[in-house]
């Protein structure tokens, strides 16, 4: 069996899901036997090449994330939403109850830790935040969802290992469903 190509992507999340992914510890060797990790925050790489499996952490919060997720959908055979943020926005979505302007001003101008000159950064090279944070499945078709904040390492390994062996995992059957 030819080696699969695996990518892990970090969109609007806290990287906790990637930490949990690293918590699979020595089992990463089992993954490495079956797949090459071609793109990941822990791998040096530029554009996402065509991959068999893409694990995507975090929700879509900005124009850049939107462009990225559309590109990932185009390149990946199987797209897995990893973690609560990707599945239902979770903490990232907590700014959705407020107008974007208010969110910016709270963080950059009115926060107690700011000095009196605090202003909202607006350099043209910065990404533009969307008004509302949305989960992945609102913009692309997601093939499998793996909720949890973060999903624990055993569950991530189980899902990954099943996909690498061309099986479809079933979280409800193995009682691994978890949010929060």
């Amino acid at each position, binding site marked *: 069996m030819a080696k699969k190509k695996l990518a892990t992507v970090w969109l609007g999340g806290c990287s906790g899901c990637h930490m949990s992914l690293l918590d699979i510890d020595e089992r990463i060797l089992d993954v490495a036997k079956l797949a090459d990790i071609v793109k990941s925050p822990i791998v040096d790489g530029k554009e996402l090449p065509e991959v068999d499996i893409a694990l995507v952490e975090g929700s879509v919060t900005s124009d850049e994330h939107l462009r990225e997720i559309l590109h990932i959908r185009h390149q990946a055979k199987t797209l897995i939403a990893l973690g609560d943020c990707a599945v239902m926005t979770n903490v990232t979505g907590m700014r959705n109850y407020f107008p974007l302007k208010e969110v910016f001003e709270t963080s950059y101008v009115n926060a107690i830790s700011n000095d009196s000159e605090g202003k909202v950064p607006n350099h043209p090279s910065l990404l533009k935040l969307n008004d509302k944070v949305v989960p992945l*499945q609102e913009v692309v078709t997601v093939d499998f*969802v793996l909720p949890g904040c973060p999903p624990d390492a055993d569950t991530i390994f189980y899902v990954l290992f099943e996909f690498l062996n061309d099986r479809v995992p079933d979280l*409800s059957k193995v009682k691994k469903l978890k949010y929060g």
Partner: protein
Amino acid sequence: MNTIKVTINNTSYDVPANASILEVCKQVGVEILTMCHLKGITDIGACRLCLVEVEGVNKLLPSCTTKVVPNMIIYTETEKLKRYQRITTELFFAERNHMCAVCVANGQCELQELGYKVGLDAIRYPHLFPQCEVDTSHPWYVIDHNRCIMCTRCVRVCNEVEGAHNWDVMGRGHQVRIISDFNTPWGESITCTSCGKCLHACPTGAIWPKAIVQGQLNKNPGMITELVEKRCMKL
């Protein structure tokens, strides 16, 4: 005791007359999902999770508020019901702001448990993300409307068990809210006795004591049932 014959999921049972379908199912060991039901307080059929199919009736009936009648043929596990249960659960999550990761009730939450039971992995409906208030005016307790699912267990327990009727319901549709007195801050309530029964009745992390942090909530809704049963005991 008067008993009647009913059929539940193709098995025939002798059950007490004048009982609800839910009570009967619990008695014979048929599991039914519930959320707004709490033994000891009046059932109102608010959450629509306990819906069952009854032969000869062309709509789904809430089992908590429907009484059994002789020769009733009841189905509790059909594909149709499972589909509706999943939809209902998704709508609970989509309606307000349920962020399990930062919730006091994480791991102790009946809504989370329900999600696991119906196999909810993702929500297919757009989240509403309403702007909800968090009332911290009470010296000991907090009500966070973001996490409320409008089961009204707090309203009923306050009215029926404590007899204070601090809580009530205001508004309609998705703008419906639990209110204290005439929509005034909880801390200013003249009816609240600070008994804490609403805390224990709440299935989610909507009402909780200030003294705890994320994931530390410890609820005991069975306490309310026990209280009611002990009051009714003939000494």
